[in-house]
């Protein structure tokens, strides 16, 4: 691993990381960068694909994840990957999702340089755009961070509060805030040969090793694990058809959650297909069986069916919840479901690109009690 440091000038974290990224772009080592940048209104930050260093005004701290970066990389690489390297700045959950999409043959890492950024958490889109504090979300977050206060916590999306791991894995380069005194410095690490070669040629100071980072990362992971355990405990009560049906009461079966999900890549989702078209008499027969049923129908079938299709790869990014027009706190069921299912198959999505997704492989000598008895 290569250890370097970005010196922060005038307490300007965003400006200093931008200098680094601009240098990277100008170096010719990569032909373009996918990076979050504020839209002209400054109300919201979106990933932009940028090739002109002069137009570069990114904000990698901006606490917002408007759409899945993994899906964007999939769109850019699925038909034909780039012929020269592109740098993609991503949060840890999105790197995990990208690894899953590669396993699902929906994305390629050819000439993709993953630049992972430590993620303190993100705000829901509408909180970000109508931020109630007197500062910008980025300023607010950075200040809370330097003060080591948890003021920002209340604004975070629920998925972020109980994030599995805010530290990127499987990145070529990591920009690290944890373990650094961010008023002065930001940690840069190369985690692959590609990353090493890129860093070699950039004007960065070497650092022996980031002992402070190791400790900070360990502490952060422990703290998150604790919060996660509390969350899982709290949600244990959500059991039984009465509670589950009440939980999805407001679901209008719009499938926005699936649309926003990086893992649900199917061109034509089964739940949008003609399988669900039926003659009137079939609807009536269903009404007869139960006496009545709610319309639009099949909302719970969609939720449970979708879960069965993708939960083993769910990276708990919470984009489904953010996309729900009716504010259904989807993570309350998706996190426990992902936790239990992934444990059952001893599978961690996004961890190892060589490991196959559990539903396409099997062992003859496993789960022997299922099917026998």
């Amino acid at each position, binding site marked *: 691993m290569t250890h370097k440091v970005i010196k922060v000038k005038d307490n300007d974290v965003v400006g200093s990381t931008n200098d680094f990224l601009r240098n990277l772009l100008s170096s010719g080592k990569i032909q373009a960068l996918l990076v979050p940048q504020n839209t002209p209104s400054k109300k919201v930050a979106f990933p932009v694909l940028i090739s002109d260093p002069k137009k570069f005004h990114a904000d990698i701290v901006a606490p917002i994840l408007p759409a899945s970066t993994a899906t964007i990389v999939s769109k850019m690489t699925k038909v034909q990957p780039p012929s020269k390297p592109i740098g993609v700045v991503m949060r840890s959950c999105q790197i995990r999702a990208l690894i899953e999409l590669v396993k699902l043959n929906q994305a390629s890492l050819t000439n993709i340089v993953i630049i992972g950024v430590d993620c303190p958490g993100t705000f829901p889109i509408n909180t970000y755009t109508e931020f109630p504090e007197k500062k910008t979300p980025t300023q607010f977050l950075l200040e809370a961070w330097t003060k080591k206060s948890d003021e920002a916590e209340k604004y975070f999306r629920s998925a972020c509060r109980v994030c599995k791991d805010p530290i990127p894995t499987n990145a070529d380069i990591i920009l690290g805030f944890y373990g650094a005194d961010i008023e002065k410095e930001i940690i840069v690490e190369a985690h692959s040969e590609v990353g090493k070669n890129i860093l070699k040629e950039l004007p960065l100071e070497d650092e022996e090793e980031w002992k402070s980072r190791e400790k900070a990362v360990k502490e952060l992971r422990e703290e998150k694990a604790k919060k996660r355990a509390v969350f899982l405990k709290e949600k244990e009560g959500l059991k039984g058809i009465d509670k589950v049906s009440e939980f999805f009461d407001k679901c209008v079966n719009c499938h926005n959650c699936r649309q926003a999900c990086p893992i649900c890549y199917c061109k034509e989702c089964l739940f949008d297909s003609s399988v669900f078209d039926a003659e009137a008499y079939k609807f009536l027969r269903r009404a007869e069986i*139960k*006496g*009545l049923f709610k319309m639009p129908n099949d909302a719970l*079938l969609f939720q449970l069916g979708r879960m069965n299709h993708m939960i083993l790869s769910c990276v708990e990014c919470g984009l489904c919840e953010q996309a729900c027009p009716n504010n259904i706190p989807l993570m309350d069921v998706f996190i426990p479901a992902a936790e239990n299912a992934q444990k059952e198959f001893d599978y961690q999505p996004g961890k190892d690109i060589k490991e196959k997704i559990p*539903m396409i492989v099997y062992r*003859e000598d496993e789960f022997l009690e*299922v099917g*026998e008895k």
Partner: protein
Amino acid sequence: MSEEKKDHKKEDFEPKIVGFLCNWCSYAGADLAGTSRIQYPPNVRIIRVMCSGSVDSMYILRALLEGADGVFVGGCHPGDCHYIDGNYKARRRMVLLENILGTLGLEKERVWLRWISASEGQKFADTMKEMTEAVRKLGPSPIAKHWNL
């Protein structure tokens, strides 16, 4: 409801079971049970599928949500799948489905997977008896009559 009344209700109740049977094994097994005149409860509604591996969890869920008290999936014995490994995949899918139903407390005991070959007419009949009794004991599925789904 008193225990007594509840039990009374359970005894009266005829469970509705939907069975997805593989064409090459369990379906032929059911056929054999029929032609050999082996008696089994009429509670199962059989749907023929080409392989247990072709039963997407969605179909099992749909049956449960639309009124079935139990769902049965019958496949070829491990190693005997006509399409080589469909049943191994069905087994993984069943493990996942049970896991998810478990997380949400949705009575995973109502979903069964069993291996029954074309020559096992007796095993098919016995399994249907076993399942019908087990589901009768569980009582009517609370999902079956739920309309807010």
